[in-house]
């Protein structure tokens, strides 16, 4: 009932832990059963270790949080040696979120990582780095070029993660599809800012950061819906999913699977609650499978 397939990769359920919110699973494994996830998208990895951005990196705003972690990660070698073997113990699909500061770095990472994971998520959308990330992801030509090169060397299916910080996200979705992406995931966080009116300083040291949480859900739904009209490859939807109801909205807008992020911080049991909620919804509405919901909005 809950099984979905993306480019030949079978997910036992459509709930994936969103990159950047779940570390490498180790931390949450002390609290919840990682087998509950259909997939886990790992903390974004880079070729070399990165220390990330200075403090403060987090602030809360109405309906969401702004972060500027800046891709802090131990680098690909530590990921392969220390984190991946741990993650492999669980019955869940492993999606490696990769980040480069040049096309060559993306290609290099894809070569190293893709034979060892179920899918790659090419992060062309991180708003918290000066080079790469969103800078590439805003330009359809760059999205095309990087996706194409990564696809050439990748041993597993490739997801391209898109940024919402553009005028028309469907242009990027089409560029990714044209370059051979197996799926797209959207949305990454929205560039945002908050100011402490007492100190008159920004609440994030980097001044701006990425907004996530319930505040961005309607925007994400709209973007999934728009992309669903324009591309044929599967869409993994995310952005402010807090409950099964939010997840259903994403499926109806056109998502094949969903990623949950901010909610993990608030309610570590969200994955099991959302899973049960989707199951009940399907039963109560006479659907046999999540697949019946994809894009099944009535306009």
């Amino acid at each position, binding site marked *: 009932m809950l099984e979905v397939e993306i480019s030949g990769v079978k997910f036992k359920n459509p709930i994936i832990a969103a990159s*950047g*919110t*779940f*570390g490498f699973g180790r*931390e*949450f494994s*002390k*609290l919840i059963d990682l087998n509950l996830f259909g997939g886990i998208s790992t*903390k974004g990895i880079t070729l070399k270790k990165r*220390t*990330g951005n200075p*403090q*403060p*990196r*987090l*602030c*809360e705003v*109405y*309906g*969401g*949080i702004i*972060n500027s*972690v800046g891709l*802090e990660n131990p680098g690909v070698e530590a990921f392969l040696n220390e984190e991946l073997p741990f993650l492999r113990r669980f019955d869940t699909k492993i999606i490696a979120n990769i980040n480069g500061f040049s096309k060559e770095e993306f290609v290099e990472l894809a070569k190293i990582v893709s034979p060892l994971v179920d899918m790659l998520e090419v992060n062309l959308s991180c708003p918290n780095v000066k080079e790469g990330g969103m800078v590439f992801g805003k330009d359809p030509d760059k999205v095309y070029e990087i996706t194409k090169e990564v696809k050439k060397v990748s041993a597993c299916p490739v997801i391209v993660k898109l940024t919402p910080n553009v005028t028309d996200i469907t242009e990027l979705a089409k560029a990714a599809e044209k370059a051979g992406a197996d799926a797209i995931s959207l949305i990454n966080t929205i560039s945002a800012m908050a100011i402490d009116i007492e100190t008159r300083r920004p609440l994030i040291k980097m001044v701006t950061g990425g907004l996530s*949480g*319930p*505040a961005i859900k309607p925007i994400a739904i709209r973007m999934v819906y728009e992309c669903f009209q324009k591309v044929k490859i599967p869409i993994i939807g995310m952005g402010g999913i807090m409950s099964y109801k939010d997840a259903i909205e994403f499926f109806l807008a056109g998502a094949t699977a969903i990623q949950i992020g*901010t909610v*993990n*911080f*608030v*309610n*570590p*049991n969200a994955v099991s609650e959302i899973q049960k909620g989707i199951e009940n919804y399907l039963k109560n509405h006479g659907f046999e499978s999540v697949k019946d919901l994809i894009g099944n909005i009535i306009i």
Partner: protein
Amino acid sequence: MKLLDVEIVENKMIANGIYLLSFESEYLAKAFKPGNFVNILIEKNSIYPLLRRPFSISFVKENKVFIGYKVVGIGTQILSQKKKGDTLNVLGPLGNSFLVERFDGKVAVVGGGVGIFPLLSLCHELKKVGNEVDVFLGFRSKSDLFFVDEFEKVADNLFISTDDGSIGFKGNTVEFFKTKVGEENYRVAFSCGPKPMLSAIKSLNLPFKCYVSLEEKMACGIGACLCCSIKGKEDNMLHVCSDGPVFDIMEVDI
């Protein structure tokens, strides 16, 4: 660590904007070590506040867990309105703890403002294993004092400082602590308080080990979100929630 629904036993103002909340939890009371903290979901299904809030555990008594906090924003404001019988979802115990052992010499405990909260149980434990403990507490003013009676019961010597001199020594508690460092043979110090206070302690270059409990904004409390990262002395990243909150002062960039 566990996710627990707990019922509030008491939530009362103990000083100017300072509250003491208690709830019953046999598990937390037993698992707790001084320095640990909990991540509390203040309102279920709320979008503002959305995130859990981290609070150090001040002390435990039988099966009751006591959390001291200051009202600073929307989360603590709502928390301060909670009444006996209301439920809270608590994740904990989280983080590491202070080193408690019998030290060969006197122990100094230095606290400032809300940083005083986690130090009370530390003092209890330090005394239990036979240490002589000097406590230095800094407040803004007389009206901000809290936990003084409790520290008086447990400290061998208690030194109060206030910024305005309304009680105790006028001025910075670190300045006063500095004078005692010259006079006493301390073997170790423990501290928690605002960052400038901890930086001042670090700059004293104490001739003995000093452990500090740090605070940073965090989302998950378990080391996954990487929002509470701080730099270690070798430019390595440390996480206040999972590598700390207690660190050797020389190992962190403050």
